[in-house]
């Protein structure tokens, strides 16, 4: 940690820029700048600061001088002359220019925000807006005073600091937005939903699964924008990827992918290549495990979910003669409790229950019967009514038991 803040690190940093700078002069300039910044920071109220504050101020100076030397040819001359004020002014002018660029990038990002909702994405964009209000480049130019929750497909290297980090992040985010715009938002949502239904609340990158499936679609020669990969496709992909040629094949796939997503500029193509290269080890380990289900996902569909969660098979229904006899017996009952007892004893099919309800349970009688049913049985009856209405929207029973059931369940839920 100490190394990081040291003036020797500063010298190495500037020497790495291959400028022939006298080390003693550089050290003197750094001291002078630190002294001047400390005095400004305390506004003359204090003759001392904590070591932590001094370190932060020094780190900011190192960052600023580095930015000045890299971006302004005059700055090296100022350093050689020992003109500290001019060095700092040159640095600030570069930083101000970067801030302006950053604000422009942020405005573009707000215009190209994907329609697919994700809390981390929106929180991060809000925080980036706040960054420009909080950023104090005159004292703490190297700091990033905001929370960046949304992780990019290609993370910004740790070596970037301050406004340079933010601008690099914004540029990468803009590229990701541009790529995502090539896909239908509903398709992207369906894909993300197959990872987790509450993907909107998760800390996850939107592009990563899209890119993986697009990569799969290219290999399968399927329409890229469909992003759909089923069980058969996964089997084909498994055999294809087992004979994968590494980097050479990756370039071909990226070329094909870019051709399908055209128009894309060089920077985006390079971004895609880097992103896929970083995703590939994950794919490779899935290939080794002979299981691509967690890598190449199938699009989420409501039907698929319902079919897999509810299965109901009705019992055999009574023959007509038996049913008529039972209806007669129930109709003769004086008390509802007797009717219910017979129902429990002799009726074992949903269709029979409904037939009997149609003619035997009048008014509030049906409510007493519903009390004796389990929640699943109540829901099944409701399902029967819905299906019946789908077949014939004008259907209604003579006794009105279906209306009573709807009212009963509504009251129960309330």
């Amino acid at each position, binding site marked *: 940690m*100490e190394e990081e803040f040291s003036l020797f690190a500063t010298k190495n940093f500037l020497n790495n820029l291959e400028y022939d700078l006298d080390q003693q002069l550089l050290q003197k300039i750094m001291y002078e700048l*630190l*002294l001047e910044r400390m005095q400004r920071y305390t506004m003359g*109220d*204090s003759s*001392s*600061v*904590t*070591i932590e*504050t001094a370190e932060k101020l020094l780190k900011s100076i190192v960052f600023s001088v580095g930015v000045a030397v890299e971006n302004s040819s005059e700055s090296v001359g100022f350093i050689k002359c020992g003109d500290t004020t001019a060095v700092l002014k040159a640095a600030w002018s570069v930083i101000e220019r970067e801030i302006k660029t950053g604000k422009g990038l942020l405005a573009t990002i707000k215009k190209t925000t994907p329609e697919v909702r994700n809390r981390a994405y929106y929180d991060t964009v809000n925080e980036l807006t706040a960054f420009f209000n909080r950023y104090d480049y005159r004292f703490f130019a190297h700091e990033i005073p905001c929370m960046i929750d949304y992780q990019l497909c290609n993370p910004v290297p740790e070596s970037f600091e301050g406004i340079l980090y933010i601008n690099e992040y914004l540029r990468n985010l803009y590229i990701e937005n541009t790529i995502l715009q090539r896909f239908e938002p509903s398709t992207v949502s369906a894909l993300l939903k197959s990872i987790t239904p509450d993907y909107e609340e998760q800390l996850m990158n939107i592009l990563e699964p899209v890119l993986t499936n697009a990569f799969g679609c290219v290999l399968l020669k399927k329409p890229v924008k469909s992003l759909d990969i089923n069980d058969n496709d996964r089997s084909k992909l498994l055999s294809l990827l087992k004979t994968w040629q590494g980097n050479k094949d990756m370039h071909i796939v990226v070329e094909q992918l870019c051709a399908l997503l055209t128009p894309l500029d060089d920077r985006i193509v390079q971004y895609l290549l880097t992103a896929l290269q970083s995703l590939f080890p994950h794919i490779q380990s899935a290939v080794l495990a002979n299981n691509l289900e967690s890598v190449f996902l199938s699009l989420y569909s409501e039907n698929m979910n319902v079919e897999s969660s509810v299965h109901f098979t009705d019992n055999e229904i009574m023959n007509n003669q038996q049913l008529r006899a039972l209806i007669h017996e129930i109709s003769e009952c004086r008390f509802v409790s007797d009717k219910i007892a017979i129902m429990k004893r002799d009726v074992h099919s949903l269709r029979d229950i409904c037939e009997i309800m149609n003619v035997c349970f009048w008014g509030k009688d049906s409510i007493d019967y519903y009390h004796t049913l389990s929640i699943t049985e109540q829901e099944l009856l409701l399902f029967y009514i819905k299906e019946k209405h789908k077949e014939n929207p004008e259907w209604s029973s003579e006794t009105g038991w279906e209306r009573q059931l709807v009212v009963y369940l509504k009251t129960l839920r309330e």
Partner: protein
Amino acid sequence: MKNEEIKGLTNIQKSYALAEIQGCNDLTFAYGLSLTETQMIELVEARFNALQETGRIEFGHGVLKKLIETFCDSPYLTQENYLETLFELQDSFYYFKNESQELLSDDELITFMKIYFDGFCQGSTDCLSGTSLEELCRRTRYGDDDMEDEEMHLF
């Protein structure tokens, strides 16, 4: 920061600090107080030890000169306890400075210390260094009587 760098920085500062307090004897003679060359060097060394212990870096004019100028008219200072008191005052200053979290300026803090030293502490550096910043500020702002009233209200 590296030790070598701090050494380089402090050597320059030490020579500045020494030159600064050498001029203070002219003012303190009137109160019967003076420092020898050796004592001055000891004080400057102690200043840098205090800074290191409290994790602070001083720049420009140090605080020692201000402490001498403010405290030299204290009725509790004599030639016998002058050097020892300055050592203690210097340590207490940096301690309180850290406690204040940069919310008090040097001048404010020294004024508070002087009022407390001459008033409640009656010249005792042990009393001054044993107090908390909060108490120091309260007693200086509201005086001893108000503090006693406040303490009474607590029970």
